[in-house]
């Protein structure tokens, strides 16, 4: 079911969390809201859920106006960063909560809970309390709980933010597979560009209460609309007015007319890649990223003089800090 947010504005005192934001989430998509902290991404998600009210603007879910509806009547599933598990209830009771509220028959609740625990790979833990589960298990329980009531959209607020790196990696892949299975329109908030790129098929980049760009992961990386997006979705280095990805900077031993002279200041070996910190003649610093083979062939060493030339660059007008059309 699609979500449509129109001209949404939300202020907290002097702080504008959402500044005239409009965005559409197509039915069945897996969308990431990506941005630094304070960019308004969580506020936007909470506005869709009805947990936060709007100062101006409208929210439509599945073509129906939901702006004035309380969270109970929006048909959304919401997953919190810190799980929001009902600590005094067992896993089974947690997952069954929404179904009990909806007064489903007991046999149906039982069957549905079993099915969901199977789906989130927690069968056999139904009678445990949340305190007896690991972080990853608690978050999967929270997900099962929100899916129980068959929401038309699933909203996740930094769902993996409280988990350690390895579990986070597992759950990302798992969420992707789950979405392919369940097909419910899903929106998740993250400040991690890698997470957004890996899991989502659409990314909404936010900054300072506005939307900077909307697009697919590859689209954003290769055709960023402005300097902010370019810097946020991947590494970036500057060569005068030009923005360059460090892997698009060619390093040579000999000049060839179009190259600039630079000195290798420091080399960092990161397994298969080598990162070189360079200083140009005018004192400007930039970074190059090379494969180990290339670095060995060039016999790079710190203090050495090299010649660099960008193979791909982008240039943004200063006004590019403003929001593009959505």
């Amino acid at each position, binding site marked *: 079911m699609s979500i449509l947010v129109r001209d949404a504005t939300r202020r907290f005192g002097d702080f504008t969390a959402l500044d005239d934001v409009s965005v559409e989430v197509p039915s069945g998509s897996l969308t990431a809201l990506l941005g630094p902290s304070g960019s308004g991404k969580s506020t936007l998600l909470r506005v869709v*859920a*009805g*947990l936060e009210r709007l100062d101006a603007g409208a929210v439509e879910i599945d073509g129906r106006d939901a702006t004035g509806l*309380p*969270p*109970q009547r*929006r048909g*959304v*599933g*919401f997953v*919190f960063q*810190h799980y*929001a*598990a*009902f*600590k*005094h209830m067992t896993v089974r009771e947690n997952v069954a*909560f*929404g179904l009990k*509220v*909806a007064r489903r028959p007991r046999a149906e609740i039982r069957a549905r809970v079993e099915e969901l625990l199977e789906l989130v790979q927690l069968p056999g833990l139904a009678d445990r*309390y949340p*305190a*007896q589960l690991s972080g990853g298990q608690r978050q999967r329980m*929270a997900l099962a*709980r*929100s899916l*129980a*009531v068959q929401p038309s959209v699933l909203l996740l607020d930094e769902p993996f933010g409280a988990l350690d790196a390895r579990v986070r990696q597992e759950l990302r892949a798992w969420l992707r597979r789950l979405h392919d299975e369940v097909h419910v329109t899903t929106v998740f908030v993250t400040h991690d560009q890698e997470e957004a790129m890996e899991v989502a098929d659409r990314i909404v980049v936010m900054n300072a209460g506005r939307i900077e760009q909307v697009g697919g992961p590859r689209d954003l990386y290769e055709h960023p609309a402005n300097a902010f997006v370019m810097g946020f979705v991947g590494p970036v280095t500057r060569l005068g007015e030009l923005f360059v990805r460090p892997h698009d900077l060619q390093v040579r031993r000999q000049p060839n007319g179009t190259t600039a002279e630079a000195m290798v200041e420091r080399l960092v070996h990161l397994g298969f890649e080598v990162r070189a910190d360079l200083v140009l003649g005018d004192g400007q610093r930039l970074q190059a990223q090379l494969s180990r083979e290339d670095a060995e062939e060039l016999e790079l060493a710190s203090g050495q003089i090299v010649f660099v030339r960008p193979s791909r660059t982008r240039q943004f007008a200063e006004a590019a800090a403003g929001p593009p059309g959505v």
Partner: protein
Amino acid sequence: MVLVRHRFRGRRLLDAVIDLPFAISPVVIGLALVLVYGQAGWLGGWLAERGIQVIFSLPGMVLATVFVSLPYVVREVAPVLREVGTEQEEAAWTLGASPLRAFLQVTLPAIRWGVAYGVVLTTARALGEFGAVTIVSGRLAGQTETLTLYVEDRFEAFDLTGAYAASLTLAVLALLVLLAMTRLPSHRRKEGR
């Protein structure tokens, strides 16, 4: 609830007022209640016209006790409520639960030990309360006399046996309440928090 969850003008003032009974003598509180609810008081006259007598009767005594023990409950429950946060309640809302249901089935169970602890402290405080109650009760023997007031009454009348007997009862009751209180934190630990 209001104190923890909402930010509003005068919040700090309300916060301070709640602690007032800690700082001022219970006798003063009793006098203040007489001033407001007494025959000649601000509200007393209006209530008396409707046949409700507050001062020198049970409502007044309850009011005095509530007022004196309010900070104990608030100071016990507020930190627990703050720690629990609002997310569990919000989760319940998105699952379709009404605000009342979310409070009763999710928030209240989560803060139940804080509330229980506050109630026990209140009971302990109420048993021993003398100052405020002595003013508003009127001390009508056998009617509006608390056990503590009775002890003082017997003592004044040189009935030492009676005073000692009542005191002993009071001490045993207090001990039981405090024993109940020590049991609560052990429950809290059992839940693994």
